[in-house]
C-alpha cells in the first residue's frame, strides 16, 4: 500500500497510518476505526463524509489529538501525536489546532468578543490585548456590531461565525470542523463554507470538515468517504474549487 503521507498535491498537513480505535472492553468492544490510512494536504479543505456511526467524528478526534488511537501512527505537521504525552498533546492542540463544533460550544456567559478571545487567553495573552485581537477577527467575520452580544442573542449562523473567528484567532495550521452546517439553513451553511475558504484556508494550512450535508460538497477540494470505520475512498472533487485554489497559492 502507498504511503498516505506521500502527497501529490503538496506537503502533507496530517497523515494517519494503520490507525485503529477500539472502544469498550474485551467482548463488548466496538471497532470505531479499522486500519485507517489517510492524509490531509496543506492548502486543502477536505470533506469527510459517510453515514452516521461510520467513525467520522472519531477520526476527526484522533486527527485533532483529543482522542488517542488504539494502534497506528498519527502525524500532524511533523509531530507524532501517538508519541506525545497528554501535556504535550494539550500544548500541541493549543498551538496548532482550531476547532469548530456542531453545537458551536460558545461559552454562554461570555460575549461574542470574549468567546473569540478565549484561545488567546489560553495562550497566556493579557486580557485587554486578547480582546483587541479578538475584535479584529470578529470584524473579519462581519460581526463587529454584535461583538458585545451574548451567544443567546445571536442567530445560529452568527454563532457559527463567532465559532469560526474563535477557531482562527490563534491562526492554527489545522482546523477541524464537526458538522459545522448541521444546525444552519442552506444559505447560511454555504456562507459559512465560503468564509472557511476565504478566511481560514492558506497554503500552509488545512481544514478537515466532517459533514452529512451534501449541499456543501462543492466547497471541498477532496472528499473522503467512510463506512464502518474504514476509508472507502478519497477523491478529488472535480466540481469543487480545488483547481482555482491551486492557481492562487
Amino acid at each position, binding site marked *: 500500500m502507498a504511503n498516505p503521507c506521500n502527497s501529490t498535491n503538496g506537503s502533507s498537513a496530517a497523515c494517519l497510518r494503520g490507525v485503529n480505535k477500539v472502544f469498550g472492553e474485551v467482548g463488548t468492544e466496538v471497532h470505531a476505526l479499522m486500519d485507517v490510512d489517510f492524509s490531509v494536504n496543506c492548502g486543502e479543505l477536505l470533506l469527510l463524509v459517510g453515514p452516521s456511526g461510520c467513525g467520522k467524528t472519531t477520526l476527526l*478526534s484522533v486527527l485533532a489529538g*483529543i*482522542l488517542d488511537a488504539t494502534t497506528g501512527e498519527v502525524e500532524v505537521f511533523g509531530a507524532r501525536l501517538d508519541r506525545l504525552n497528554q*501535556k504535550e498533546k494539550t500544548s500541541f*492542540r493549543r498551538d496548532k489546532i482550531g476547532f469548530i463544533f456542531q*453545537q458551536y*460550544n460558545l*461559552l454562554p456567559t461570555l460575549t461574542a468578543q470574549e468567546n473569540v478571545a478565549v484561545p488567546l*487567553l489560553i495562550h497566556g495573552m493579557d486580557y485587554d490585548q486578547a480582546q483587541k485581537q479578538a475584535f479584529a477577527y470578529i470584524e473579519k467575520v462581519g460581526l463587529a456590531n454584535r461583538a458585545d452580544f451574548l451567544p443567546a442573542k445571536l442567530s445560529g449562523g452568527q454563532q457559527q461565525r463567532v465559532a469560526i473567528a474563535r477557531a482562527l484567532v490563534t491562526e492554527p495550521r489545522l482546523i477541524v470542523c464537526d458538522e459545522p452546517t448541521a444546525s444552519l439553513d442552506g444559505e447560511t451553511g454555504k456562507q459559512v463554507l465560503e468564509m472557511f475558504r476565504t478566511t481560514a484556508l492558506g497554503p500552509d494550512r488545512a481544514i478537515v470538515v466532517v459533514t452529512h450535508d451534501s449541499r456543501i460538497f462543492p466547497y471541498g477540494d477532496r472528499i473522503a468517504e467512510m463506512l464502518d470505520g474504514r476509508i472507502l475512498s478519497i477523491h478529488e472533487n472535480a466540481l469543487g474549487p480545488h483547481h482555482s485554489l491551486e492557481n492562487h497559492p
Partner: protein
Amino acid sequence: MFRIAIKMLMGDHAKYFTLVSSLVVVSFLFLQQGSIFCGLILRTARPVEVVGAPIWVCDPQLRSVDESKPLLDTDLQRVRSVPGVKWAVPMILQLVSAHLEDGNYQSVRLYGLDNDTFFGRPKMVSGSGDLLTQNEAVIIGRAESEKLNNPKPGDTFEMNDNQARVVGIADVPRDFFSYPFVYAAYDRALQYAPSQRKQMNYVLAAPADGQDAAAVAKQIAKVTGLAAYTENQFRWLTMGYYLKNTGIPISIGLSLLMVFLVGMSIVGQTFYQFALQNERYFGALKAMGTSSWTLTKMILLQALLVGLVGFGSGAGLGGIFGLTAGGQDSKVAFSTPWQLFVISFFVVIAICLLSALISIRKVVKLEPAVVFRG
C-alpha cells in the same frame, strides 16, 4: 483565564445565587449556633467575673462556682499567712430562696461580701453600694431583677425569714441559670443563708505587689491544702465543668454538624450540576488546549469566590443578629469571639473546596472528545 472563570460562575445567575445563598445560610447558622454555644458557656463563668478577685480559694473538691463546699473560718487566716498574699477576705456565695412580697418564691444567687471592704461589690446603676453597711441592706443585680418584681430602692423581700431591703441596683449581667444576683454584707448574708456548721465557702485574695497571681495561687494551694485559682483558671474550671457535664456541647455540636452536612450537600450538588451543565464547555476549553491544572485552578477560584461572598454576607447577617438579639442584658446568650469567625470562615471554605473537588474530579477526567458528541 481567571476572568473567564469568574464570568462563567457569575453569568449563570441561578447557580451563583444558589451557591452564595446556601453559603450565606451555612455561615449565618454556623456563627449563630456557635455564638449561642459560646454565649451559654461564657455565662457559666459570670458569677466569677462579676467579683473581679485575682485569686479564688476554695475546697479542693469544688468543681464549679455553682457548688457550695464550705471552708473553716480558720482557713481565712491560713490564706492570709501565705507569703506573697497581699490581702484575703471571706465570701459567701450560695443559692438561697427569696420570699417576695407577692407571696412567690424565687431562687437568688447571694453574695456575702467582706464587712469591711465590700470587695466584689458591683458597679451601681442606682442607689449606693456604701449603704450595704445599713441593717438589712441588699443590692440587686439589674439583670433578672424582673424575677424579683423589679424592686426599687426601699422595696423589701425575705430570705430565710429575714427581711432584706433594697438599697441599690447594680449593673450585673445575666448568668447561665438566669438567677437574680443579691449582694449583702458578710454578716448579714450569714443570716440570709440557711444555717450550716460552716458557711464561708470562698476566700478571695490578691497577690502582693509585683507577685504573679498564678504563682501565689500555687503557693496558697501548697501551704493550705486548699484549691486556689486565678480568676481565669476559676472561670475555665467552671466552664470546663459545664462543657463536660451538660449536653450543651453535643447538642450544639450536632446542630453544627448538620449545618455542615446540609451546606456540603447543597453546595456540592450545585457545584456538580454546574460541572455537568458546563461539561461541553469545559470539554471545548480542554480541546482548545486548556490544561487540567488550569481548569482546576479556575474551579478552585470559583469555589473560593462563592465562599468569600457567602461567608461575608452570612457573617454580616450573623453580626446584625448578634447586635439586635445578643448583648449583655439580652436573654439570648450570644457571644462571638474572633476565633469563631476564623473557624466559621474555614468551615465555609472547606465546604466550598470539598464541593469543588467533586467538580474538579469530573472535569479532570473529562475527555475533550466529548465536544464532538452531538
